[in-house]
């Protein structure tokens, strides 16, 4: 036995891990090259929202808003839409987890970068990037979950988690703002073309502006529904309203706009100068001058296939609702539909048509549009609408690529000729679509970028904030700039603050449609219960044998949406609450579940 013990002792290295090129954390940060790769990884958690297909792209927002429906039932947006989401199944979207993973990685980077041998200027830029990204990931959490634990350190798996706490909402916004300020001082205004996508000072200012806009909004700013939402130690997570927040938001937005415009950013216009081309190319031409922060998605064509009607080889997945279609203005800026007569709890909605606008749902176009926006026999619903409508929506009879789209029942893109994949509303999304991409052969793909911040949004952010802070006067020029670029006339002058607010809300709905803004806008304006607790509609996809078939053009209830008070903020996954009960479930979720 003794001999054998000795034998084992002499072979004690036998079980040591033999060397290979595996790296430790220390080795990673000991070399500039590897440190940079670690930073690259921190970027990789930016959500691929362009796919809009929800779970993996972390974008249930478009389809959970009143502007869109996904045809499939499995995406989380549909769980949300029927009100079936809860603290257990919310982890499907990975919203909470992914952003905290990203925050952890940014924290590891910031903790260890000090030891990396490299020149100090470059190091400071990297610190700026990681600081910005950490702030952005915090913002992604705050916009869903409200007050969250701010994590600016690396958590060890061995630490005690049971006392984790949320930080009050204002501290969360202030953290984001402070970090944006810090990062802005370290980052350049713009990037060279090979570094597009890296954080800039402009990106910091844009995030700060949006964070302050959210901070000022009714959902977060002294929301009376949340006044009793108190931490265990007595700290109120939603303090009383502060009216000056709007002015802070306006100042930050203006600061961002001015800084950007001084540094070569500006509203994008197409070379042809045509509003339709401008609004189309704004989303298909990468890194245009309006892009403040975005993500290069390469040529992966998943999103093109999601959007494309199935008869073209796509999946007809992303279906704008009749509600968003109705919201687009006429070409002259007039409002086609001023409201609805609702029956049966909104299941049947009859539009109140503004006859002065010239809009009608009766009959079909007699002639092709000379500008190519529509062809004859197309429903009059789609005639003479504003250019952004034609750039954003695939509708029945629209000419696309090689032929007219046929969403009616027996059409090439209709229900009868599809199985899993069909348009459930009679519309598909066309914003972001590249008309040179062939979905059947998967050829002709171009590079796609997803824009998190663009200057156009900042214009509307400013207009919204300044209108609330000071009244409409200073808002006009920024709203009108957006409208004029889209080929629409100026707003009527002499609007009250309330009227201006309505105009801005409407402008955001159209200009920023399908860019994830609508979901959060409805929430922060506290209109979710009004807009999304009712039926959404499409056309009658189960009928129709030709483009101008009346049976198809019947508004048909597509889904009864459920939106209750608790739905304004997302629940925290139950596992985290179980581990750390002091985290506190989001308002109204706990009572509803018990």
């Amino acid at each position, binding site marked *: *036995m003794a001999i*054998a*013990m000795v*034998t*084992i002792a002499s*072979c004690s290295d*036998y*079980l040591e*891990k*033999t060397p*290979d090129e*595996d*790296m*430790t*954390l220390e080795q990673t940060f000991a070399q500039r090259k*590897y440190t940079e*790769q*670690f930073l*690259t*990884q921190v*970027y*990789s*958690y930016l959500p691929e929202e362009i796919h809009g297909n929800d779970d993996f792209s972390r974008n249930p927002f478009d389809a959970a808003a009143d502007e869109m429906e996904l045809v*499939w*039932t499995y995406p989380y947006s*549909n769980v949300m839409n*029927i*009100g*079936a989401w*809860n603290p*257990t*199944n919310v982890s499907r979207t990975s919203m909470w*987890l992914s952003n*905290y993973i*990203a925050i*952890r990685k940014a924290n590891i980077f910031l903790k260890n970068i000090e030891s990396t041998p490299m020149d100090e200027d470059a190091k400071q830029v990297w610190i700026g990037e990681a600081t910005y990204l950490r702030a952005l990931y915090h913002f992604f959490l705050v916009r869903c979950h409200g007050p969250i634990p701010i994590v600016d350190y690396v958590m060890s*798996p061995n630490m005690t*988690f049971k006392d*984790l706490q949320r930080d009050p909402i204002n501290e969360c916004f202030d953290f984001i703002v402070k970090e944006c300020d810090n990062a802005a001082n370290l980052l350049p205004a713009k990037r060279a*073309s*090979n570094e*597009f996508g890296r954080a800039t000072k402009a990106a910091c200012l844009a995030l700060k502006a949006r964070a302050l806009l959210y901070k000022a909004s009714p959902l977060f700013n002294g929301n009376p529904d949340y006044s009793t939402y108190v931490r265990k130690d007595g700290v109120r997570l939603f303090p009383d309203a502060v009216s000056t927040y709007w002015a802070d938001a306006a100042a930050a937005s203006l600061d961002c706009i001015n800084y950007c415009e001084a540094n070569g950013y500006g509203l994008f216009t197409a070379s042809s100068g045509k509003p339709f081309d401008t609004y189309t190319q704004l989303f298909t031409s990468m*890194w245009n001058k309006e892009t403040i922060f975005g993500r290069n*998605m*390469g*040529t992966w064509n998943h999103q093109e296939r999601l959007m494309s009607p199935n008869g073209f080889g796509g999946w007809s997945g992303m279906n704008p609702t009749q509600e968003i279609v109705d919201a687009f203005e006429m070409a002259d800026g007039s409002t086609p539909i001023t409201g609805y007569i609702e029956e049966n709890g909104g299941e049947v909605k009859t539009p109140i048509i503004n006859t002065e606008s010239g809009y009608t749902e009766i009959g079909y176009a007699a002639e092709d549009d000379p500008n190519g926006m529509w062809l004859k026999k197309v429903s009059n619903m789609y005639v003479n609408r504003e250019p952004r409508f034609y750039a954003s929506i695939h509708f029945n009879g629209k000419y696309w690529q090689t032929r007219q789209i046929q969403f009616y029942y027996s059409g090439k893109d209709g*229900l009868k*000729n*599809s*199985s*899993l994949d069909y348009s459930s509303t009679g519309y598909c999304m066309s914003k972001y679509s590249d008309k040179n991409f062939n979905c059947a052969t998967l050829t002709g793909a171009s590079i796609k970028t997803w824009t998190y911040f663009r200057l156009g949004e900042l214009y509307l952010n400013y207009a919204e904030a300044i209108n609330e802070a000071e009244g409409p006067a200073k808002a006009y020029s920024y709203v009108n700039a957006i409208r004029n670029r889209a080929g629409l006339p100026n707003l009527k002058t002499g609007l009250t603050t309330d009227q201006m607010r309505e105009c801005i809300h409407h402008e955001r709905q159209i200009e920023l449609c399908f860019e994830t803004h609508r979901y959060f806008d409805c929430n922060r304006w506290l209109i979710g219960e009004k807009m999304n607790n009712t039926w959404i509609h499409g056309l009658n996809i189960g*009928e129709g044998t030709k483009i101008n078939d009346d049976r198809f053009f019947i508004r048909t209830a597509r889904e*009864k949406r459920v939106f209750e008070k608790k739905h304004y903020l997302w629940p925290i996954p*139950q*596992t*985290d609450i*179980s*581990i*750390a009960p002091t985290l506190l479930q989001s308002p109204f979720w706990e009572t509803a*579940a018990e």
Partner: protein
Amino acid sequence: MEIKKNMTGSWIKQNIKKIGWLSLFLCISIQSYSENEQTKDNQSITQKKNSTVSGTVLDDAGQPLPGVTVKIKDVKNAAASITDINGQYSLKIEDSYVEIQFTYLGYSTIVEKVNSRKIINVVMKESTSDLEDIVVVGYGVQRKESVVGSISNVEVSKIEKLPTMAIANALGGQLPGIITRQSSGEPGYDAAAVYIRGLATWGNSTPLILVDGVERDMNLINTAEIQSISVLKDASATAIYGVQGANGVILITTKEGIIGQPKVTLRTEYGWQRGLRYPDYINGYEYATLWNEARTNMGKAAAWSDEELQKFKDQSDPYLYPSVDWVNEILDKDTYLSSTNLSVNGGTERVRYFVNAGYSTQNGLYKEDLTNNYATNANYTRYNLRSRTDINITKDLSLEVGLGGNVQKRIYPGQSVYSVWEGLRQTSPIAFPKVNPDGSSGGILAYLGSNPWAKVTQSGYSTSDRNNLQATFGARWDLSTIVTKGLSLNTRFAYDHNYTNYTDRYKEFGIKKYLGVNDEGVDSYQLLREEGLLSYSQANDANRSQYFESAINYNNSFGLHNVSGMFLYNNREFVNVIASNSELNLPYRRQGIAGRATYDYGHRYLGEINFGYNGSEQFPKGKRYGFFPSVSLGWIASNEKFWDINLISNFKLRGSYGQVGNDVATSGTRYLYLTRMAKNSSNYIFGNGTTYVPGINEGQIGNEDITWEVATKANIGLDLGFFYDELSIQIDVFNEVRDGILIQRASLPNVSGINSGTAPYGNLGKAKNSGIDGSIIFKKKTPGGIFYSFQGNLSFAKNSIETNDDPIYKYANQSRVGQSINQPFGFVALGLFQTQEEIDNSPVQEFTSVVQPGDIKYKDVNGDGVVNSYDETAIGYTRTPELMAGFGGTIAYKGFDFSFFFNGATRTSFFLDGTTMFPFYGGEGTFNVLHTYYDNRFIVGADNTNAKYPLVTDSYSSNNYLTSTLWMKNGSYLRLKNIEFGYVFNQPILKKYWIDNIRLFVNGTNLYCWDYVKVVDPEADSGTGTYPQTRTWNFGLQVKF
């Protein structure tokens, strides 16, 4: 530790595990045993007189056995007789109380007490081991009588009756303590999962499988090469394997040479296989009708007119209104398998040898397109070669050389079995025709690739070539004369190499959608995909392993005291030489020592201590080596002098207690104590190009306190023999506590940013497992020469999770603690809602916004007034059965023999759920529908008293398509697993042609199954089926020269 130096050094040790050395070993042990016996017998001998004993010796087929040596046992130079051509003998004896011994090469030795008898007729059984009373144990063998651990064995002749290329498929129900489940019948991938005494951990639960003492894949061993199979179950039997023993051990030994003239055996068999339980889908007319019904149920207009329905029904327009029976289009009813083995066995005192060469092939069930100039049907062909040579260099020094190898060739269609079955599920009978009028594959734009026929026949093919080499070299140095009696040194070295080459010649099949006849009267098509060319891609996989062991053995008797000891060092290195990343390429290493001491007093009181002390690279320095001891005691009451219960010829009580370990969390996880960075992960694109730049991510986070799982096992066993052991019963009751189960931390909040993939492992789980296993064997030969036997086995194991690292669930019903490992969770279905009133009076079901009559009604398990995901609770049993049993019998008379074998399992649940039970899972017209759904669905407006399944909806039903008891079936089954008829010709005339005998046999496998699942095989994975199981009728011939 180089082997070449070891020949003369103190390293020379022999591997006593191999039966090859047993004869020598036995000489020693039996000698000492017999000395002991003599002392005992001498005391009782009181009477001496001369007499003659005579009789006939028959083989187990009832034929006279000539050439058998008959002599008085344990008496040197005693008179001997040899049986004549009629198997008859006559022997003079001096003492009517002696024992006489019948020996014949290749047959089990028989010892009979004379007891004043004049005529003693015996039946000698051919032995797979001529040492039938020897049991293979860890790193050695023991006499069956002295075994105190819980070990079960199966006779190879029983396994031989089941024609399968994977041994695992023949074990279920054959021996106590094993639970198996064969989930697929796909050639080459049909091996059953095997568990010893169920599961006791939710990490790695596979048993350690040793072939000739070396970790090897048992499913590559040909049945014809196997000498014995032992299953080690309790701590006494497995502690010696230390950190690898916790899940039980299966020991397979291969055949060795037996001294004598060369004996040649040729066995060849051919089986017809019939595929069972193909998915039974509804036809086109039924499908279209159901589609209309779905739309009606959802308040929509019908999709198909009566005129169109008629076309589906009468198939007057089969291209535009098809009704395709896809199953019939891609699957044949019958296929075949065959196997042939030729072995030679013989030797002298100096050199013994065994050689076997075999060929086996098994064909698949896929139909082929005869216009292809290549095969696409699944096929698995294997050539086996195994040889074993034992050389006595001197009286004390002997060598053993074993070589095994096999070459395999496998062919499969260009698309995987998963893809093919997914195609069957996806594609409705009316989706499109199999082929269009012009012969091209039918299809539609959605689900481009799902034409099942094209997947199977038009997608090219893939092949794999596998080679496997198993080399073993051993030496034994008997030190009896040099040092002390009973001492020997053994050493053994093994080298294995596996190589697989995968070649895919895949083709994208062309797809056209047929649009009918156009205005000009010509068939028109929409080309959806151009046919591709056969592509070529190649991949491979290879690994090697070296094993070294060196042992010192001692075995001696001192009067009534019999002692033995064993002390061993071993190490093993396994390298995945073509690993996909550098870490997986690093050698997997283990080393350790093991020891055993046994004590036996007068064959009455038995004691044994076993230990393993070994290390694993999984753990940090200082926590690497674990000591795993066990102690066991036995009492053979029937050997006591006072034992006078003649009815009970054997009564042995055994008990053991000890610890065994497990160092594997899940396969592929390594060095659990190290934190590593993941390179080239989380890549990202900067700039305006398409090039991803590499990222570096945090990888697995290490835990510096990690160590092995410990299984603490207790076992109590009882061995009983009645009527001179004609009836024997073995029962074992066991209890196991598995502590420190290796799992990933689950109680880390997301806020920490540690995702489940990188979370550190810890010794965080605890589980209990207890149960009972046993066997009953009855064997009898009537004076009229009819031999009959009956055998039954039972294994029952029930486990439960004691602690895990799950965060506390909101409601107790969700908790996994207290439930079985892998316990299914789901909803409790209370049936189907019959009326709107019933819905209004029931708790709100939150899965969908509108619940309607015909939807599933669930129980509000947690009583909170609503039904939602918090109402999930444990339902049914795990898919791995808790109880498995088998029973069978044999009858033989003269040359005829007949045997049968049933096996079955219970306390298991099957979920008949997923697509095809869930109509229109992905929307209208998607997915096939099984008849069983169609025939038992809720129909609005009809009498639904017998409806079992919910109403049809035109899209995914988030209320109905949940895991619930509605879809749960009792997974119990009883199978007529095997019957066999045989006849042996051994007429003297055969001798002229050098033939000893010829046996003809026919056997049937998987002949009938009684179960509740019906739709798919009850052993299949839950769901709606994959590659089916087969029934085999197998004809064979065995010739001995």
